[in-house]
């Protein structure tokens, strides 16, 4: 009994890491896009300088998280079929979660 709970918990741990990383990647992506939008609406040099620097940082963050996810095998930009298999698996897990 305890064993299955533990198994479940550790399994969920893996899952949580992946979901958190995925969420982070999606956020990092939106961050880059939002900053690019914001920079092109700027007229005051002071505001623009801040947003431009933060855009660069957002790009760095995106690079870091996508490299991490590729490394862990959670993101397969080169292998579309592999990525789709992973997507389907994730869909099943998410749909199957008790609510």
């Amino acid at each position, binding site marked *: 009994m305890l064993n299955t709970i533990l198994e479940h918990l550790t399994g969920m741990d893996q899952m949580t890491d992946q979901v958190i990383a995925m969420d982070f990647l999606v956020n990092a992506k939106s961050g880059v896009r939002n900053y690019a939008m914001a920079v092109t609406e700027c007229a005051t040099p002071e505001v623009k300088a801040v947003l431009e620097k933060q855009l660069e940082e957002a790009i760095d963050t995106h690079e870091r998280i996508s*490299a991490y996810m*590729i*490394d862990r095998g959670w993101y397969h*930009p*080169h292998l*579309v079929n592999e990525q789709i298999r992973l997507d389907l698996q994730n869909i099943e897990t998410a749909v199957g979660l008790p609510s």
Partner: protein
Amino acid sequence: MTAFPSLAPHESLELHEALNFKTLCLAKSKLMQGLVFDQELKALMQKDVEQSAQAIAELQTVYAKAPFQAPVPPNRPTPIVGEGGSV
């Protein structure tokens, strides 16, 4: 991370879009120069023409690694107007 000889599909498509966008920009900045009156604006457009040409060259180098890359024929292979030369 394993090294891949070619680019990933999604990034190749993004390069396709970027290359076409830059090509259109260059064409427009070049043509518009013949229409503008303000010389400063014209100079800025000329700068865009030069920068775009450079950008296109860079994009082409990377785009050459797209998984769907193919040898480029020197001319458009089919007639531009009409079927087989007829109007």
